[in-house]
């Protein structure tokens, strides 16, 4: 089942890529159909999913791959990965619908995004470190070609920076993985077995070094301050669908790695360094919010709020390692919040980047100062952008609130000092309101004059994402019931 979900888009990508005579319209719709079928399959998997025993996986498949280093094709899902798998399928479907209006080589673009969908889904279901790494690296390669091939302005430069920077992260990650492999006895790359065995638990120095390598790799990918500098240029020059996938899906690979790999496999080292991780999280939250506040380019601003939102997740997973007394309940709430935030940020920021793409498509600029009074000519755009902004800043009733509320409840209960990160929410609220005001209110002027409102492809793709955010905000149980058992397990695992 999972293998079908993962490889169906890849198969479609190969067909699309090797059929040069296929018409553009057929290619665009083929992408939508495949993404929709894949989403249906994911929903089927969700229906068949039942919470596995702690430390185990549901819908598991294991096949030999490279027996010499005990690496296997091992996939499975649990409460941490299933929501991300579903979110990934949703985002790619939204991008497919949005891409119906693409004019520049739509067939190749569809093939490339289907390839990216396969590797993203594959990463979230991987239960083997090498398999995880393969998908991690391929996602970088795929995104490089998206930015270099369909980006604008300085896209070649931004793509290069993105590739080199995140490749550095992936190699650090690989070094950490090899360290885990060599330390485990018997040697293995299997995630489930490594979690059970906890290699390096009695060796603080080696454990710290391996954790440092893995954290460096994940921190570049997430990204957290100070490794975030590749993100704003990559986002600014990427096409709209590329930005949406980059922010919604690829960034989650970093934060997911924290919870899936670093925490349960190196619990002792994680606990020793928990405070450092918390500090990085808080700094990311506050610093990125301040930098976002200073941006005049809408896409850069949203990019920095991504760093800010990732900061909340890093903060929460750091707090999970502050094992003391009776805070297990609070820490599991924080981890639940972190996973919810991954899903919520994916939906909301994906929507915001697609909307930013509309601005560039119509007027060729992301500068907020170039617009004014845009709500007049484009009311649908204004409405959806306002909803997206409110979801992003954490207004109750939308998914961002559920996530951030849980993160702060858990974190402040376990470590009251983390309340300083609340400043971040305040600043984000301010900057989104200012952006709304600058672009949409006042006299219709500048690039806003004669601005065509959203096409149905745009409003339906963005609208669906925001509706889901609303659904999570109002009726979160369907999501939280899946995440909570896994979050409790994660907290138990890090406390060993």
């Amino acid at each position, binding site marked *: 089942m999972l293998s079908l979900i993962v490889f169906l888009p890849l198969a479609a990508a190969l067909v699309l890529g090797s059929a040069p005579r296929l018409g553009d319209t057929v290619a665009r719709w083929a992408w939508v159909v495949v993404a929709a079928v894949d989403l249906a399959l994911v929903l089927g998997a969700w229906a068949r999913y039942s919470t596995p025993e702690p430390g185990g996986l549901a819908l598991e498949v294991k096949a030999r791959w490279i027996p010499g280093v005990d690496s296997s094709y091992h996939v499975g899902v649990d409460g941490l990965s299933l929501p991300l798998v579903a979110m990934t399928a949703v985002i790619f479907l939204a991008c497919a619908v949005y891409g119906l209006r693409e004019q520049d080589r739509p067939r190749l673009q569809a093939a490339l995004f289907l390839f990216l969908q396969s590797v993203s889904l594959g990463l979230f279901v991987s239960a083997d470190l090498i398999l995880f790494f393969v998908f991690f690296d*391929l996602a970088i*390669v795929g995104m490089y070609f998206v930015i270099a091939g369909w980006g604008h302005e300085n896209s070649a430069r931004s*793509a290069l920076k993105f*590739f080199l920077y995140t490749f550095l992260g992936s190699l650090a990650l690989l070094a950490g993985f090899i360290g885990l492999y*060599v330390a485990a006895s018997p040697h293995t790359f299997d995630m489930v077995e490594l979690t059970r065995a906890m290699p390096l638990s009695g060796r603080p120095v080696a454990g710290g070094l391996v954790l440092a390598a893995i954290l460096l790799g994940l921190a570049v990918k997430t990204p957290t301050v100070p490794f975030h500098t590749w993100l704003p240029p990559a986002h600014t020059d990427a096409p709209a669908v590329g930005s949406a996938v980059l922010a919604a899906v690829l960034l989650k690979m970093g934060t997911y790695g924290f919870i899936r790999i670093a925490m349960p496999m190196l619990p002792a080292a994680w606990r020793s360094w928990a405070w450092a991780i918390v500090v990085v999280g808080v700094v990311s939250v506050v610093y990125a919010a301040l930098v976002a506040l200073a941006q005049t380019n809408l896409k850069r601003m949203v990019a920095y709020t991504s760093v800010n939102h990732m900061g909340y997740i890093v903060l929460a997973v750091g707090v999970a390692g502050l094992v003391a007394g009776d805070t297990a309940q609070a820490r599991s709430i924080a981890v639940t919040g972190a996973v919810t935030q991954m899903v919520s940020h994916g939906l909301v920021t994906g929507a915001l980047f697609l909307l930013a793409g509309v601005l560039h498509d119509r007027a060729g600029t992301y500068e907020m100062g170039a617009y004014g009074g845009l709500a007049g000519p484009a009311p649908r755009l204004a409405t959806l952008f306002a909803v997206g902004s409110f979801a992003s800043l954490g207004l109750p009733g939308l998914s961002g609130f559920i996530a951030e509320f849980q993160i702060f409840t858990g974190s402040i209960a376990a470590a009251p000092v983390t309340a300083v990160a609340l400043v971040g929410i305040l600043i984000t609220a301010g900057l989104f309101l200012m952006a709304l005001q600058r672009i949409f209110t006042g006299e219709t002027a500048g690039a806003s004059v004669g601005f065509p409102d959203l096409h149905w492809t745009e409003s339906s793709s963005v609208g669906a994402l925001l509706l889901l955010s609303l659904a999570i905000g109002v009726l979160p149980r369907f999501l939280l019931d899946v995440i909570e058992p896994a979050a409790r397990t994660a907290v138990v695992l890090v406390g060993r």
Partner: protein
Amino acid sequence: MQMRPLLMLPEMLLFVGGLVALLGGSFLARDRQWVTRVVAVLALVGSIVASVFALAGDPTTAFEGTFAVDTGTGVARIVAAAGTLLVLALAGDELAGTARESETYALLLFSTTGTLVLAGAQDLIVLMTGFLLASIPLYALIGLARGPRGAEAAMKAYLMGALFGIVLMLGVTILYAVSGSTLYPDLAATLADAPPAAVGAGLLGVLAGLLFEAGGVPAHFWVPDAAQGSSGTVAAFLTTVPKIGALVGIYRLALAMPDTVAWPLLVALLAIASMTLGNLAAYAQQDPRRLLGWSTVSQVGFLLVPVAVAGRASLALPSLLLYLAGYTVTNIAAFAVTCALPRRRELAAYRGLSRERPWLALALAVALLGLVGTPPTAVFVGKLTTATAAWDGGMAWLAVAVLVNTLVSLFYYLRWIAPAFSSVDRGQDAEARAGQAATEVALRWSARTAQGAALLSIALGLSAGLIWQAID
């Protein structure tokens, strides 16, 4: 201990095939020279089949213990012959109907035979024979490209080869002097009691000779010139096939060395020097073949990593063989792209390739990213397992050096990929190039070879488990 010459059937097939091609070529008209290509292909295929049967049998030795027939030799035979086959496919464009066609095939087969002798040699004298048989045809092959660059490259390779050949013989002499034998098993038994300084000097000499064949630091100077100055077919061959024999040869030599000399450290330092120097020198190159030439120098560094932990990590030999196989197809794929577009001798000339020839551009991307070690290509599995072997063998710093150098190498491969896939084509250049593209025909054999080899490198990576069972 017996002669058992049949155990060397794969080598004999190649050598006889070379002789037939050479002699037959002199009796054939210019437009019938393709017959010698068929002869060469048959010899290579026959050699591969014979090697597969030999690989299935138990490890043994031929010619009174001087030539090992085991997993290392078996895989080297198959990979080297398959690599030469791919090179012959490139020759279909470049050499068909030229004056030196049959001679080139003969020399390719002779050199391949030499590299196989190097791979299986368990005796210093046999090793020397292998060195000469592998390198002398190389000088001629490089010189076949007429022109100032070809002449310079041939001269450089010949002088370097002569120098390092003498150094190799000197090393052999010293090792023989202190041990009284040239057989590796005897060396392993007696060298531990010999004076370490003499053993070290002898090892250095033999190692230097083999590094010339492999094209690694400090004997690498001829490689970039040869890659740039010789024909594409020869460039693909000389940066790929000789390395197979040389590195398996170095591996065998390392196993015979005693603990009294710090050979693991020496090999590790040579590995780091090779990968770093190759990478740094590749940065500024504008000619794609010269860039690839330097990149092969750095690849030798990566290939030396498992040798440094030979005998101390169970992964060492399988990872070396896997890396060699992956490197062979991936490197030939990259050279094949340059052969398919012989008029593009600058990186900038590849601008817009993805629009004009998407499949060739894809093959280029797979080959170059494969050389970086991007999954799921075969070189990724090779790099992963060699780094793991190094860490497992107690050299974690060497594994880190591998990863750091991998990152460094990405930069110059991207310098080639980026123009090929750039989205914007600017102004007049675009028109000029469009005109050029219209008249330019990608050479068919080379383009097919590039795509096939790129596909093969992915397939090898995905099926690494199956291969692993065969070579473990």
